């Protein structure tokens, strides 16, 4: 009977129910998409770094792990010192430039020869490797997103580049240009953002890291294989705070809408509450009825929110094909729990208010 009562109340005011459901759905979708976007970008970047095939990555002391945020170049000569270390087979410098004109992307300035040595080279789908100073390589995702092909000219950083090759997705970045040209363009000659180190054998990675740490104290030296596990929001400055802020914002919106919805519901049903009391309904039963209604509304909102998240992801990916949005069951569950707790908190005061209503006043309410 309680479930029938709750369902009847939900469907008695369909617009009110729809607004409540949408509020929860937006809350859930916001949490899932924001977290999915950040973790997707991190995971995708980590995968591409791992995909290079190098064993170690060396960065400047103040550099950030999330490479697109890194703005701390090192002298390129450090590469020569790294090369001298025992068990080091090859060292490749890379200069990274974050670009926001015409899209959000990181341009990798590389030395084709040394990059080939540490990564065993690109898998070319079309064209050839970097040869001239204006040459550019793009991966297949970038080509699809920007509708580019080998032979095209692509203007980037106010510079015309010639696309000479299209490589398979999954190695370092999406756009590669000669390191020297990129250094000159941004006024950072003889600088590198990071060094990729290939050891003679993978088992020597630990020894080489120890050597480099001795040689370059305070420089972050990381095994590339661990990059995936290290690339989480907790290791990225301010990202955790950003995610928490967005979740708090989403929860606040959901909580306030549920509060308002249930508060107006209680006002609207004042007379009904009086009737329930005249029938002998306890305070607990009235609270339970309203909270069950909220929970059901929340479940509908969560289901809609999950659907909405996939819809938003599809929309984003259609508009920005190089984006990566990672929707995980773990975060779907967390978003659902966050929404449920928020909704119950939002409905608690109106439910308490309803249970405390004076029966006689409630029965004479117009």
């Amino acid at each position, binding site marked *: *009977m*309680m479930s*029938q*009562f709750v369902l*009847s*109340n939900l*469907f*008695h005011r369909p617009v009110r129910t729809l607004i409540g459901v949408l509020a929860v759905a937006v809350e859930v979708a916001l949490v899932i998409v924001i977290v999915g976007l950040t973790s997707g970008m991190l995971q995708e970047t980590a995968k591409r770094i791992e995909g290079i095939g190098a064993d170690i990555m060396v960065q400047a002391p103040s550099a950030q792990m999330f490479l697109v945020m890194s703005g701390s170049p090192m002298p390129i000569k450090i590469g020569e010192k790294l090369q001298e270390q025992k068990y080091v087979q090859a060292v490749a410098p890379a200069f990274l430039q974050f670009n926001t004109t015409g899209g959000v992307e990181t341009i990798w300035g590389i030395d084709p020869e040394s990059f080939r040595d540490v990564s065993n080279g690109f898998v070319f789908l079309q064209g050839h490797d970097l040869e001239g100073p204006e040459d550019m390589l793009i991966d297949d995702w970038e080509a699809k997103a920007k509708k580019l092909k080998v032979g095209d000219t692509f203007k980037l950083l106010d510079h015309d580049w010639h696309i000479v090759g299209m490589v398979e997705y999954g190695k370092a970045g999406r756009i590669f240009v000669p390191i020297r040209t990129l250094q000159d363009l941004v006024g950072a000659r003889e600088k590198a953002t990071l060094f990729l180190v290939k050891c003679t054998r993978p088992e020597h990675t630990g020894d080489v890291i120890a050597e480099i740490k001795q040689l370059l104290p305070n420089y972050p030296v990381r095994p590339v294989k661990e990059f995936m596990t290290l690339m989480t929001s907790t290791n990225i400055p301010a990202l955790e705070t950003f995610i928490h802020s967005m979740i708090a914002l989403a929860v606040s919106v959901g909580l306030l809408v549920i509060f308002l919805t249930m508060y107006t519901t209680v006002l609207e049903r004042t*007379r*009904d509450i*009086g*009737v*329930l*009391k*005249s*029938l*002998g*309904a*306890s*305070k607990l*039963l009235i609270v339970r009825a309203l909270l069950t209604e909220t929970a059901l509304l929340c479940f509908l909102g969560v289901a809609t929110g999950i659907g909405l998240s996939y819809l938003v992801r599809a929309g984003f990916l259609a508009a920005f094909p190089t984006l990566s949005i990672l929707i995980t069951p773990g975060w779907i569950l967390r978003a659902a729990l966050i929404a449920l707790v928020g909704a119950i908190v939002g409905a608690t005061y109106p439910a308490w208010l309803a249970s405390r209503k004076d*029966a*006689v006043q409630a*029965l004479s309410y117009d």
Partner: protein
Amino acid sequence: MAITVRIQTHSSSETQTELKTLEPILKTENLWKLYHTGKVEVPALCGVNFDVLPGESVAVMGPSGCGKSSLLYVIGGLARASRGKVYVDGNDLSMMTDAERTKLRRHKIGFVFQRFNLLPALTARGNIAIAQYIHGDGFDPHRFDVVTHLLGLEGRLHHRPSEMSGGEQQRVAIARAIINEPKILLADEPTGNLDTKNSEIVLEMLRRLNKDLGQTVVMITHNPEATAYFDRVVHMRDGVIVDGIPAD
């Protein structure tokens, strides 16, 4: 205080008359109800003494503002008495907590209101069944069928209040009030929003409940014609009962 009444019993061969002592099922002693409007104290009931025997039907009449509804709400446990005693089936409401009065209401009292007060989201069936649910004994299909048949509601059970006439809504409200076999049925101007024909139907229903099932009924009314359906009429004025005249 017990009251001695003369009861006639009929057998196939003879009619016997015997005297029986009955305890009132409803009794008030020097009942006061005061409302506060800011710092002003407004008395609604001023020392009401009122008894109702089991199986009796009583109509309470009086002008607007004389305290009829206040009396109904206090004896029904919806409002607390300011002073005095209220006994319902031997339970002193004035000594009870809010939760205890709620429980007593659930098991011993049924309400019928002037404005029907059906839950708009539920069908007629839902409105009746929710009373059974709140009562706590679960859905009793036999009792449900008996009551809905008695009130002629079989064909209207799947309709919402907005799809029913006033008379039908009031019959649903009566069904809801009696579905749990309360000791007392309290009706607050049940014909106040009905036309003459539907008023007569509702009053006839109340009379049948009283005569056929022995349901104790206390009804508040403005309508002098309605009192003809009741055993006893009580007049109220300015918060006190001014008489108690047998109807016939």
